[in-house]
């Protein structure tokens, strides 16, 4: 949840609070408020958005204040009409508009309807003596009646003691607006208390400052990589929050990748498995898999960091192709490392990368597969610390990569939420199922549901010939805690700590580790892990071909195979993330089924 600190006016206090991990700061421009701002605010320092709060102020006054105080957004806290929002929007298309509603016991949420589509957020505040700042909460259960496309900000008397209750809310706010209960005197906020609140509101499933998800993650990198990893860590969150970044990213996802991808209700799978089965169609993304959501994000970052040369690792070649594609798009040099054995196994993807202008370098060390390609990419990065950006292909590697890649993939669950609301009149499913290699498509499909324990998260790992055989990639079943590619996680290794070569018929799941987020989800039992063997996956893949006319990637077939292992209730809503299309796997399907 995002945090908005409201009622700020003192310059030193503004400076202190700007240092915290907050997303919005509110300044009140209303004479009758004790927190009314009467002077020019200091220059903004921090990545938060600056919001001006107005109560029935005339349009011209708002306009002037937006200019004079360099506001990023406006919160309309009185009885403003929709027309005013429209007028403000046409004057400042990028201005964040927030409309406040005071909630009484018999508030009619239909009052919000006319504002739908014109406000970026609705803010629900307690109805009281004053237009705001009454310091008391309203009955939050009322929120359960309300459903809308517009996310909301919860406000009114929020205090330290409410952290638990907020986490229990069924209809969760996007933003928490805190004010009087965090003050040492009117308008002066207590920095340490707010810091504590932010900490408590942080999920137990998100990474901490040092990039650890519980026990897992971190940045176990040699000193040669420290400056690179550190500068990425310091800059990426700020950079990706910038409006120009968001604009470029969203535009490319829409016009180039083809998002939003459909959430397709499969009638025949639903009949077969006795539940409402939906497929999230990442296979329809440009280049044929979810991988490009991430490479688009990272290439925009690389550009903004002034990097000239891109490197990547690839196993099956999907991430390599997705990277070569965005490098072609942006005109950047691209070097992809690929295990020598994989280059032979995945020749068509090698050719695709070359056609896209990338140089494919064989990794000839060790086992000559994905893990060695990753080693080579990291070595390249060590040798080229200033001009080169390393685009990692999954939620693996040193912090901040796992967190960053998950964020770029989170568009998957963001869309699922909206699409479910339209199709099922609810914004959460009962189950989300995804395959896990490194774990990026699963991280994206789980992302917005992780906090909501009513959604069951299901991960499908590659069992290969069987999780109890030597030929498997079932990392959570067979792995132990260790460090691979700069991250502490579960991985397949010998007793002596040598990393072993996994096996799966699916080249994209053939990785000896798993991202630290997934190790944490496994260890805390937040997600349930299934091990799916080669034959189970291929059978499930062929079933989808026959039932729905969709040839899935063999990776995604592992997720489909989970359906066979579960028992559902008829009304259960199940989303399977179809991470990629199967064209690249035709030869494997052909050889296996003997077509």
């Amino acid at each position, binding site marked *: 949840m995002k945090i908005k600190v409201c009622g700020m006016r003192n310059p030193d206090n503004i400076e202190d609070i700007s240092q915290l991990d907050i997303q919005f700061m509110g300044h009140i421009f209303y004479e009758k408020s004790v927190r009314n701002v009467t002077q020019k605010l200091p220059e903004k320092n921090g990545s938060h958005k600056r919001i001006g709060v107005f109560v029935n102020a005339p349009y011209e006054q708002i306009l002037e204040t937006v200019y004079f105080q360099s506001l990023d957004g406006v919160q309309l806290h009185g009885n403003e009409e929709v027309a005013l929002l429209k007028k403000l929007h046409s004057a400042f298309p990028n201005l964040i508009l927030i409309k406040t509603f005071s909630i009484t016991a018999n508030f009619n949420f239909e009052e919000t309807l006319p504002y739908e589509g014109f406000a970026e957020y609705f803010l629900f505040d307690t109805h009281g003596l004053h237009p705001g700042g009454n310091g008391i909460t309203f009955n939050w259960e009322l929120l359960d009646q309300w459903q809308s496309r517009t996310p909301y900000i919860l406000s009114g008397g929020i205090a330290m003691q409410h952290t638990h209750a907020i986490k229990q809310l069924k209809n969760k706010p996007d933003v928490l607006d805190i004010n009087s209960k965090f003050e040492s005197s009117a308008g002066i906020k207590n920095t340490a208390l707010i810091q504590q609140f932010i900490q408590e509101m942080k999920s137990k499933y998100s990474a901490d400052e*040092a990039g650890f998800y519980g026990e897992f993650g*971190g*940045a*176990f*990198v*040699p*000193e*040669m990589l*420290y*400056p690179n990893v550190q500068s990425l860590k310091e800059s990426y969150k700020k950079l990706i929050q910038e409006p120009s970044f968001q604009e470029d990213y969203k535009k490319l996802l829409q016009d180039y990748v083809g998002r939003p991808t459909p959430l397709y209700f499969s009638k025949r799978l639903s009949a077969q498995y006795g539940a409402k089965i939906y497929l999230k169609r990442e296979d329809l993304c440009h280049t044929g898999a979810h991988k490009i959501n991430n490479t688009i994000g990272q290439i925009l970052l690389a550009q903004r960091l002034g990097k000239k040369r891109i490197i990547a690792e690839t196993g099956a070649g999907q991430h390599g192709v997705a990277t070569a594609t965005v490098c072609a798009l942006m005109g950047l040099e691209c070097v992809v490392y690929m295990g020598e054995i994989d280059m032979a196994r995945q020749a068509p993807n090698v050719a695709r990368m070359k056609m896209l202008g990338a140089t494919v370098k064989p990794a000839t*060390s*060790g086992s000559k597969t994905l*893990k*060695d390609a990753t*080693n080579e990419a*990291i*070595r390249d990065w*060590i*040798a*080229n*610390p*200033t001009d080169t950006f390393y685009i990692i292909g999954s939620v693996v590697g040193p912090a901040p990569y796992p967190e960053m890649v998950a964020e770029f993939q989170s568009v998957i669950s963001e869309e699922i939420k909206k699409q479910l609301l339209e199709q099922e009149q609810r914004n959460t499913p009962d189950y989300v199922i995804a395959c896990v290699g490194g774990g990026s498509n699963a991280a994206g499909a789980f992302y917005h549901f992780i906090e909501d324990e009513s959604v069951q998260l299901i991960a499908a790992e590659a069992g290969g010939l069987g999780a109890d055989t030597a030929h498997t990639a079932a990392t959570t079943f067979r792995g*132990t*805690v*260790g*460090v*691979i*590619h*700069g991250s502490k996680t579960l991985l397949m*290794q010998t*007793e*002596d*700590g*040598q*990393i*072993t070569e996994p096996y799966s018929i699916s080249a994209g799941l053939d990785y000896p580790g798993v991202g630290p987020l997934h190790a944490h989800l496994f260890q805390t039992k937040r997600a349930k892990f299934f091990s799916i063997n080669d034959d189970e996956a291929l059978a499930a893949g062929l079933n989808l071909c026959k039932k729905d006319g969709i040839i899935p990637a063999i990776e995604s077939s592992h997720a489909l195979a989970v359906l066979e292992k579960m028992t559902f209730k008829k009304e259960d809503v199940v989303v399977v993330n179809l991470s990629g299309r199967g064209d690249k796997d035709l030869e494997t399907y052909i050889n296996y089924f003997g077509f």
Partner: protein
Amino acid sequence: MNRIDQKLAQSSNVLSIYFTAGFPNLNDTVPTLINLEKSGVDLIEIGLPFSDPLADGPTIQASSTQALANGMSTQVLFDQLENIRASVQVPLIIMGYINPVLQYGVERFLQACQRIGIDGLILPDLPLEIYTSQYQELFEQYNIHLIQLITPQTSEARINAIDQVSKGFIYMVSTAATTGNTGVFSDEQQEYFKRIAAMNLKNKQLIGFGIHNKETFDCATNYQSGGIIGSDFVRYVSEHGIDHLEKYTKKYR
């Protein structure tokens, strides 16, 4: 007093050699140590092989792969070294990666080092922050020095932080690269050597990565206390074996 500290107090042109344990043959570890000491080497780094050595170049990785195939493991290495202090007196450092140490158990690993007479460890993928927050106390309890790396890109503030925590010496990586480079040191690199010397750090420094002849070794001892040779030596033993190492080391002195 730790043997590393003693050595660095006496000598200002320390010749330090890295070799991969169990390479070329599994049982070459102990004779290599004895022969290196005989040939006048001041300090020895014993490479504990790892399947995925990120900071190493192709030469050392290939030797590690071979050593693992020969049967080398953490336990085998400790068994081989059990009585090493009866025959070898120079300071000994084990260089490896964090994962095998974690699997052996950090404390158990340090105990074995102390019992055998290992003086320090180099673990390139154990960064400063994780070392200080999780392991420093244990290392100090067993009087094992963790030697930390700096590179030309390391900021001054961070060098100072590393110097505060370091014991033994600071391992100065000569260049932005993995091990195994074979050129001369550029003016830019020498500027870096000078810059670090001028910082008057608490710990002395040894330079590693790219030392392979008298010229590069002398250049390293110009501003710092010595040099560390790795890939060039590994390449030598893979061609000539481990019997006459004085033939190799004489090129530096």
